[in-house]
């Protein structure tokens, strides 16, 4: 008997799950953008969300730290669990949640402040440093983890906006990890970068996954194949198939996945 399934070869079952989405629906007004999506996010791994424009992958990503709350007409139902708690529970402190689940956007958006202050901002407002020395050490550690410190160590007081596009994006990554999150959401973080800056970010992600869990939305299937361990394919608001990245790109189960990744539907 053939059982209809949306899940391809699953990630090794012994990998712990850090976040779980159960039957998530998202509406923008009356329009449904996400239909009944369930997906596990394995810890310390990179999950790539792929699909054509308008398929709902960015909308779904933004559900993971309630970024959709900022859109008035947006309504989310279903459940997303993080550390056993539903993040959509009204008691959840959204600011604290976003310090645990950080985000890096498509376009690098450094604050109009110095490189140092860009990274120090988060730890300062969250009260993570008790002294100036401790704050400095957090900033330096974060810049090192983002692979940027060696390039900016002698100009930490210069504006963040003076950096190149790739450096600005790594500054945003440093800013995200300065508050010591567990999960980092990345929404097309390399789409505005050249291939070298992209390669540097991809290499950085490989290192970062030892400490963080990463969920990335990308339009580049090659990038998804290169960096992720789990891939989820979205189409018209549905999660068509998810599973081990190698299996998705060599032998997907669903015909729609096959047609998308082989360039037959857009």
């Amino acid at each position, binding site marked *: 008997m053939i059982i209809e399934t949306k899940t391809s070869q699953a990630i090794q079952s012994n990998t712990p799950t850090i976040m779980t989405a159960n039957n998530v629906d998202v509406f923008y007004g009356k329009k449904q953008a996400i239909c009944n999506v369930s997906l596990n996010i394995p810890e310390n791994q990179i999950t790539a969300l792929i699909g054509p424009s308008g398929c709902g992958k960015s909308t779904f990503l933004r559900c993971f730290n309630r970024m959709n709350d900022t859109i008035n007409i947006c309504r989310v139902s279903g459940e997303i669990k993080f550390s056993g708690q539903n993040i959509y529970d009204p008691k959840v402190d959204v600011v604290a949640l976003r310090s645990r689940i950080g985000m890096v956007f498509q376009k690098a958006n450094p604050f109009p402040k110095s490189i140092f202050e860009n990274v120090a901002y988060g730890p300062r407002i969250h009260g993570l440093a008790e002294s100036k020395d401790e704050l400095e050490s957090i900033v330096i550690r974060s810049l090192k983890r983002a692979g940027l410190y060696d390039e900016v160590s002698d100009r930490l007081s210069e504006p963040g906006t003076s950096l190149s596009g790739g450096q600005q994006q790594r500054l945003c990554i440093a800013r995200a990890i300065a508050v010591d999150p567990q999960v980092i959401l990345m929404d097309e973080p390399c789409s505005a970068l050249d291939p070298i800056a992209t390669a540097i970010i991809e290499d950085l992600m490989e290192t970062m996954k030892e400490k963080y869990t990463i969920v990335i939305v990308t339009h580049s299937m090659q990038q998804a*194949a290169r960096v992720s361990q789990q891939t989820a394919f979205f189409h018209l608001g549905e999660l068509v198939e998810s599973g081990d990245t190698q299996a998705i790109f*060599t032998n997907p189960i669903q015909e729609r996945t096959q047609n998308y*990744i*082989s*360039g*037959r539907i857009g």
Partner: protein
Amino acid sequence: MSENHIVASFDNDMSKLESLFQEMGDIVLVQLKDATRALRKEDRDLAKKVVKGDKQLNELERDLNDLAIKILALRQPFAIDLRYVLTTLKSAGHLERMGDLTRNMAQRTRTIAKAEAETGPIETLIRMSKLVQGMTETILEAYKSRDGELAKKVRAQDEKVDMAHNSLFRKLVTYMMEDASNISACMHVLFIAKNIERMGDNIADIAKEIIYMTTGDWPEGKRAKSDKTSKIIFS
């Protein structure tokens, strides 16, 4: 899967790859038929034609390799397209080796014919060749129609070739033991038979590739093999 790729030139490259493979397969089939006929008729001219014909096969393989590398580098195919390109690339290598084996058959046939030597009982060898010809035709059909089930059947047929090879080996060794003057020509015939047996193995390997291409999984377990000649000794 939908028929057409969004980028039409991708489909053109894939069609060209398929036609190069089919052309190689067709030539291998003709080469095998001609090499067998040349042996049966002791026809030196036909054998010479087979030897020369291998060059075209090598050139086609080179063109196919270049195109497959271009597709991999420039198109970066995924899923069934990726499996299709890899299967074609690897299977073309098997066809090229089959071409080398037919050339070697023809070279040995020329030697036998030139010496006007007695080849001994070759009916079984002709039967082996016909079996491999049939397998080649069917595997080309399986590739064209992307039919993994048909490939499975072809893969299983190689056992018959092995069994015929065992039988021929015994016959020829007996024939040589009866009269030492037969040895020289019979040794060439034995090598020709081994060439045909190897061609069967190559077809079985192509079948394995096609099963992977169509299903995404390699066939489980080892295929049935019956070549016992390495264990036969007469005293």
